């Protein structure tokens, strides 16, 4: 502890991932040389993960308001109103770096962390999704990472008893050195029982609940955005270990306590553990906090103030209780066998004061920790491919059937049943659609059953087409939002709001920064037009190994609502249905083949411009679909995306082994199977199209 309270030097700051300027800024703002613990607190708060310093400037441009938004970005999770005095609470977060180092624990703690972000707002989590991206499948390391990540997600989600209802799994060699594990959770709360993290009332007790603190995950926050070099394994053992059993106890104990009036504010100890929770709670309430670190329950002995403040042990929460309610609260945590320790109090000094062994380990003004985190405006260059490929540019001796077979062998399109059968998708008894039944997963809203109806439902999807974003960041960003909205609508629900996970390479490179700025521009434009604002999210940068960045992957998690789950739509057509392609133009000229799966099969690369986005058509196709569904005219619906029209149609026919007689546009009737124009009709990836199945 003596060392932790020594004055820091520049090398310490550099070792903690801070730059020279950042170190000087800190010394200037607090007008003293910070000791090691104080510097550690700053390094966590100024990390990319907590401060979003390289992307904050652009994140502010995202639309975050709408009539149904109760709480936008800035809290642990986003909150939207879904009627009947109920609110949906949701967020997506990434655990990319820890999952590469230790796939099982990395992904398991990712699920645990995102669940805590939801129930800390007072919501019972009701569904889990995950968006995963791995390197090329023939690499032995990829096999090891896939099996570890899937087991970790299942291991945590199944044990804590929350259904994993969907997501996406893609493979591309750009993720060889940097896999992506984005976990999304959706919860349900009463509209008037939402809990926030802003501290209130000087003198109120600050309570630590949950598992004991250990040395795991120290520097997790700064590691989260650290670029991997060849020997990244020497960063061990900084990986946190998750305990889903304690997670379940913490979930039930917190929800039980939140039913009383004892809790004033609460925050999950996520990345940077006690540091981010105490600083954010105190600064949001524009108050102060003084903590006695000797009172923090620890599971390893002789832990220094530095280690306690930066530890990322899992399953821990920080709460501020109404004075006098500590006994009642403690009895609930005793029932669930969890630690409950009063470790300090709220003050009005505007400072964070920590004591250890009677010495003052930290005395910092709170304001610079949050307000003065640097906001960089890194140079960027948005590069977009403008070359429009015509069908005739692609020559092949493959027939349509040959191509279709290749498409369904593509790991990004083939069935992922071998993955999601390892997830419990039906626990809690509210799952209507999971894993591929429909374009969006659908979960009943428990307790809204009415006479003659099973009640409301929440539709959830995660979407992104990284190859489009690589070719044209703005169009790629727009397309991710539009595809998510189409998927929600194709399940019969109305798209409502977005949580996004922006996974990118190294922002210090102009083209990567251009990908970030471009896709945020695209997302903003589409999200505002479709009135699906961003209510929460996460940014993961420096996903790069040996100088090679991943494909730009801005994942869009979207939530929608349907009033009666019986009117929901699956993707499988039924016998004697008629299929209609909404949004497909009558007089067909050419299918968009640029940047498509089809082009990759023919040219072994994507080099054309991605399909253009017409926001007006996107909005119209969704409105028409929902109107038709309201009149109960539809049996099924499936959004046209990767692989084009024919791939989408096949996916609608598989379940009941159906066939389909297709009437081609007049100008294609006598084309042979090799004709590029006909093939562009089959496999072109034009947007704003949904196939509906109907008996009427």
């Amino acid at each position, binding site marked *: 502890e003596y060392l932790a309270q020594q004055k820091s030097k520049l090398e310490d700051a550099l070792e903690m991932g801070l730059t020279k300027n950042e170190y000087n800024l800190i010394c200037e703002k607090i007008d003293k040389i910070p000791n090691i613990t104080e510097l550690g607190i700053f390094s966590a708060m100024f990390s990319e993960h907590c401060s979003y310093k390289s992307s904050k400037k652009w994140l502010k441009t995202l639309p975050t308001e709408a009539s149904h938004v109760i709480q936008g970005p800035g809290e642990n999770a986003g909150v939207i109103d879904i009627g009947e005095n109920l609110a949906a609470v949701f967020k997506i977060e990434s655990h990319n770096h820890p999952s590469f180092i230790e796939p099982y624990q990395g992904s398991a703690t990712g699920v645990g962390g995102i669940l805590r972000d939801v129930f800390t707002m007072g919501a019972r989590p009701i569904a889990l999704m995950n968006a995963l991206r791995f390197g090329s499948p023939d690499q032995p390391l990829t096999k090891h990472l896939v099996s570890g990540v899937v087991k970790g997600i299942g291991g945590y989600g199944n*044990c804590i008893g929350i259904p994993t209802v969907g997501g996406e799994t893609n493979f591309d060699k750009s993720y060889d050195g940097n896999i992506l594990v984005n976990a999304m959770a959706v919860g349900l709360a009463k509209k008037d029982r939402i809990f926030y993290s802003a501290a209130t009332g000087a003198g109120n007790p600050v309570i630590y609940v949950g598992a004991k603190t250990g040395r795991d995950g120290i520097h997790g926050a700064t590691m989260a955005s650290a670029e991997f070099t060849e020997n990244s394994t020497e960063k061990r053992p900084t990986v946190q270990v998750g305990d889903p059993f304690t997670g379940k106890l913490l979930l039930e104990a917190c929800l039980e306590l939140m039913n009383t009036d004892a809790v004033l504010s609460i925050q999950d100890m996520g990345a940077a553990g006690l540091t981010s929770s105490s600083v954010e709670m105190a600064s949001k309430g524009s108050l102060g906090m003084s903590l006695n670190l000797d009172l923090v329950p620890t599971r390893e002995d002789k832990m220094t103030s530095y280690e306690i403040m930066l530890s990322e042990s899992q399953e821990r929460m920080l709460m501020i209780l109404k004075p006098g309610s500590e006994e009642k609260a403690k009895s609930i945590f005793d029932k669930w066998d969890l630690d409950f320790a009063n470790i300090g109090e709220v003050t009005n000094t505007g400072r964070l004061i920590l004591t250890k062994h009677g010495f003052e380990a930290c005395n910092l003004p709170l304001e610079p920790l949050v307000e003065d985190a640097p906001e960089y405006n890194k140079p960027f260059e948005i590069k977009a491919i403008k070359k429009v490929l015509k069908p005739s540019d692609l020559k092949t001796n493959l027939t349509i059937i040959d191509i279709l077979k290749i498409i369904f062998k593509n790991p990004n399109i083939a069935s992922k049943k071998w993955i999601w059968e390892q997830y419990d998708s039906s626990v809690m008894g509210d799952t209507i659609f999971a894993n591929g039944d429909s374009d969006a997963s659908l979960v009943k809203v428990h307790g809204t059953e009415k006479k003659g109806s099973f009640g409301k439902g929440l539709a959830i999807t995660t979407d992104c087409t990284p190859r489009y974003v690589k070719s044209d960041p703005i169009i790629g960003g727009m397309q991710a939002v539009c595809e998510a909205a189409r998927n929600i609508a194709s399940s019969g629900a109305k798209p409502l709001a977005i949580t996004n996970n922006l996974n990118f390479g190294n922002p210090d490179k102009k083209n990567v920064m251009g990908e970030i700025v471009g896709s945020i521009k695209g997302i903003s434009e589409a999200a505002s037009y479709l009135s699906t604002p961003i209510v929460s999210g996460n940014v993961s940068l420096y996903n790069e190994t040996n100088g090679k960045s991943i494909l730009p992957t801005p994942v869009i998690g979207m939530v929608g609502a349907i009033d009666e789950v019986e009117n929901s739509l699956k993707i499988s057509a039924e016998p004697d249905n008629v299929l209609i392609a909404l949004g497909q133009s009558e007089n067909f000229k050419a299918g968009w083949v640029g940047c498509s799966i089809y082009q990759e099969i023919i040219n072994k690369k994507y080099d054309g411009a991605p399909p253009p986005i017409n926001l007006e058509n996107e909005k119209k196709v969704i409105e028409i679909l929902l109107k038709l569904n309201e009149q109960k005219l539809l049996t099924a619906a499936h959004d046209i995306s990767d692989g084009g029209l024919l791939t989408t149609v096949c996916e609608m026919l598989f379940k009941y082994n159906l066939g389909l007689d297709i009437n081609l546009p007049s100008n294609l009737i006598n084309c042979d199977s090799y004709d590029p124009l006909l093939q562009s009709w089959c496999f072109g990836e034009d947007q704003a199209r949904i196939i509906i199945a109907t008996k009427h």
Partner: protein
Amino acid sequence: MRSGVVIFPGSNCDRDMIVAIRKITGKTPIKIWHKEYDIPNLDLIVIPGGFTFGDYLRCGALAARSPVITSIKNHISRGGAVLGVCNGFQILIEAKILPGSLIRNKKLLFTCRETTLEVQSCIENPFLSGLKIGECLKIPVAHNEGNYFAPEDLLKQLKEEGRIALKYIKQNDNEKNYNPNGSTEDIAGILSNNGKVLGMMPHPERAINNLQGGTDGLKFLTNCVEQIIG
């Protein structure tokens, strides 16, 4: 019918079972916390699915040492009926109320999917007597350690005493992996020697309406209620 659902730290299918029983009987079963010694007189106690105590050491091992197990044994000696589903079945085995053991699924993976069960001919019992022998029920499973293992002599005894209640069955000949976990002779559920205790891996409470995978679970549980009320 007076029924109760036992809740341990780590149970996560308790609410699903309560919803199913309330849908059938119109009455909400009481919640029994695992530390309760004395519980009121009940007709049926259900031990629901979940990951009690995190499945640590062995599934159900730590839960089987909770105080409530004594009150469950008293309930059985009074002639009461007990239904153990998934983790509940594992707890009944660890508490030595049902014989044999449940080990890891043969493919070593958690599996959550539809299965078809065939009602076996077995001794008088309040769970299956109302159903026809050979009748098939589509009920989902979701578990990691559902591979029921019985040594030779126990298997012989179970057959002779007609205590094998349910088996996984293939719907058509080319359905290869109809048995989700590789259990001995495709066993999915067994009865105690007096027929009053049934342990089964599949989750009937997850098949109680047409929107979510059929109503065979509802048929199974409704039959249990009718048999128990008698």
